């Protein structure tokens, strides 16, 4: 029974008790009394005792009614006092009293009983889905081990952590707040934050982020942030806030609910009085029409819709965050489902954002390893990104002591003596100045060429480039498959580099040689293009295709805010990016974008199914009820039954993800 809260247990008890009494009374009314009455013959009126017994049974029906409905009645009275007339409890009470008034005692109790059963399921299902969302985001640490100066360790609440505290994280425990490792090195699992299943190695001096799970060795860290400011707290807050930025669908439902209930109630009043007045047999038919009107009242609560749509969106946001993607509002989820254009920054987003050796061409008589080794020897002391790429590519560097006479010409090249050889590394300009002859290169250039010479003679070329990220090509292919019409790359790089990267990644269009401020202009132009396609006006603007911008969150806040959806990548721990973007991808994986688009599409699908299903059942029930075909039992189903089914449908959003 631990699955239920105290309140739920109490409700369950009153439901069960009144159900038993109700069934007993039903048996007495429909089996015992008729057979007692029939013993005197079918033609005659029931004898006095049976009639009295019938009245007693009717009165007894009030017992289960009050047991199960006392909360509803209480809320109804308070509602009347507070002038909240279209409140659910008020409508249910009115409907059941109407049924009592028409002599349908059994039906009145049944309606109240099933209404409560439905409410119970509804509450249970919502509680359950709240729980599973909390599980999805179960990255918040429960405690921290603080080490005092004398070396003793005490367990404290994460809220009590102060900046500078030394914290001990045992294997398997969660990192309680952001900090720097001061002792130990361990594999930490970042999956709760990034969705990345591969653990990351952290060692002394490196940052660890709260919410990660420590692997196999003990870590000591120094806290750098208080719990409220740490990554996990920020993320949890964002996800919670997300539900307050409502989607168009949610707003539609809220507005709809606002008018729906009063409209149905007015229809019920009309239904109760007008048909019997028209027919002329008011006294004879009034009861029947009041019953039908009561059916209306039961259906008039919009709860199924009001619950299930936000629940679907909440589930979608939860599902996305379990994959390491923060969606900062339901509205963005809705926009993601209808993306038309994806604009992406190149450096750091589509490419790795740092130079690597892409290709080495060797002159005759030399192998590529040797060329890198020579170049690396000359570049050892340099901090230039190209130098870093070359030194990184060198597997067996020349000993530092052998390198002498380093001469650096900024922006052009470098010469140095390695042992007895003089090495020169630089661009074409540099080689011209040095008077070293270069062969004409036939190769299709994708990056920056570094020429290498030994003792005044050209020996090879190293091509250094910012390489596309692994998986970028596939991610773009999948985005196009998910319905994105065009993917456009923006870059400050040269036309040549841009076209090489774009064609390598299968990108439909690119804009090269842009200054940072040009990016906003380009995005605005693209947005205008989308607007023109659907025509002017606010209404048309709602239907136009949507534009998303993907950036690394550094220096692109203006572009992020201009676009419909601003997506920041690789922003784990970067507050500025989390602040500026609408969607934050915690790691570098571009493949998360099509994955989130799928989640978004599914969320929208489920909420549409719910809306259509609930409206269909409610309206058919209203029509059948007006015709006298559907009774109050059907109405109860149309109310709470539909709500439960819609909630279960929304919960699919959560279950799929694990």
């Amino acid at each position, binding site marked *: 029974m631990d699955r239920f809260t105290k309140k739920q247990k109490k409700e369950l008890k009153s439901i069960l008790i009144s159900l038993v009494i109700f069934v007993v009374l039903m048996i007495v009314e429909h089996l015992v009394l008729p057979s007692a009455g029939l013993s005197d013959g079918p033609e005659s009126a029931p004898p006095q005792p049976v009639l009295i017994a019938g009245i007693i049974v009717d009165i007894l029906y009030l017992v289960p009614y009050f047991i199960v409905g006392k909360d509803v009645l209480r809320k109804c009275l308070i509602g009347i006092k507070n002038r909240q007339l279209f409140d*659910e409890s008020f409508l249910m009470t009115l409907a059941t009293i109407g049924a009592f008034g028409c002599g349908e005692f059994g039906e009145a109790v049944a309606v109240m009983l099933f209404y409560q059963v439905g409410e119970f399921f509804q509450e249970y299902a919502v509680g359950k889905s709240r729980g599973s*969302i909390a599980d999805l985001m179960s990255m918040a640490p429960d405690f921290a081990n603080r080490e005092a100066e004398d070396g003793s360790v005490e367990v404290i609440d994460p809220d009590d952590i102060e900046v500078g505290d030394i914290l001990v994280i045992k294997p398997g425990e969660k990192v309680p707040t952001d900090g720097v490792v001061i002792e130990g090195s361990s594999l930490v699992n970042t999956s709760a934050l990034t969705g990345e299943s591969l653990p990351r190695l952290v060692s002394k001096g490196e940052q660890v982020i709260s919410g990660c799970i420590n692997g196999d060795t003990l870590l000591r860290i120094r806290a750098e942030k208080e719990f409220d400011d740490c990554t996990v707290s920020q993320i949890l807050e964002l996800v919670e806030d997300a539900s*307050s930025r409502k989607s168009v669908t949610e707003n539609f439902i809220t507005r709809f609910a606002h008018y729906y209930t009063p409209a149905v109630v007015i229809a019920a009043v009309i239904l109760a009085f007008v048909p019997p007045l028209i027919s002329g047999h008011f006294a004879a038919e009034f009861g029947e029409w009041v019953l039908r009107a009561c059916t209306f009242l039961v259906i008039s609560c919009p709860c199924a819709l009001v*619950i299930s749509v*936000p629940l679907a969106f909440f589930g979608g946001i939860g599902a996305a965050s379990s994959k390491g993607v923060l969606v900062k509002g339901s509205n963005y989820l809705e926009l993601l489902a209808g993306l038309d254009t994806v604009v992406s920054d190149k450096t750091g987003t589509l490419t790795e954002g740092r130079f690597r050796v892409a290709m080495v061409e060797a002159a005759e008589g030399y192998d590529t390893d040797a060329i890198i080794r020579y170049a690396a020897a000359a570049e050892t002391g340099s901090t230039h990104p190209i130098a870093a790429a070359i030194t990184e590519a060198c597997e067996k560097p020349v000993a530092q002591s052998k390198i002498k006479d380093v001469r650096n010409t900024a922006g052009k090249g470098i010469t140095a003596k390695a042992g007895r050889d003089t090495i020169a590394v630089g661009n074409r300009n540099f080689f011209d100045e040095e008077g070293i002859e270069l062969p004409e290169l036939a190769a299709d250039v994708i990056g920056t060429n570094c020429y290498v010479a030994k003792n005044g003679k050209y020996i090879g070329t190293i091509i250094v480039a910012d390489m596309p990220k692994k998986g970028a090509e596939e991610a773009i292919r999948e985005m196009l498959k998910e319905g994105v019409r065009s993917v456009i790359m923006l870059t400050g790089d040269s036309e040549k580099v841009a076209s090489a990267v774009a064609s390598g990644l299968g990108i439909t269009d690119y804009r090269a040689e842009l200054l940072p401020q040009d990016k906003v202009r380009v995005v605005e132009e693209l947005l205008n293009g989308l607007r023109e396609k659907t025509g002017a006006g606010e209404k048309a603007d709602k239907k136009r295709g949507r534009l998303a911008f993907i950036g690394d969150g550094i220096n692109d806040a203006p572009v992020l805010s201009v676009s419909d959806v601003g997506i920041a990548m690789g922003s784990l721990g970067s507050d500025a990016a989390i602040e500026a973007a609408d969607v934050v991808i915690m790691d570098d994986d571009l493949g998360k974008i099509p994955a989130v688009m799928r989640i978004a599409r599914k969320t929208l699908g489920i909420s549409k199914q719910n809306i259509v299903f609930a409206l269909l059942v409610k309206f058919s029930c209203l029509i059948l009820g007006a015709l006298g075909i559907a009774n109050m039992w059907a109405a109860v189903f149309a109310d709470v039954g539909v709500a439960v089914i819609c909630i279960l449908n929304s919960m699919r959003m959560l279950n799929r993800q694990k």
Partner: protein
Amino acid sequence: MKKKFKLIDLDCANCAAKMEEAIKKIDGVTDASVSFMTQKMMIEADDAVFDKVVEEAVKCIAKVEPDCQVVL
């Protein structure tokens, strides 16, 4: 000032929407939201009248759903 409050026993989604509407109408409130899913209420209002606004909001909530409590 912007502050969040936890709500206990907020049972119906429609009620949450009604509360939100009512709280937004209180004088001095710049923004408000009542989330049925997270059982939380957010109020953003002028500093000078904030305490008074919260008091009003608690009354609004009690009116819509008597069983619902605000953790202050």
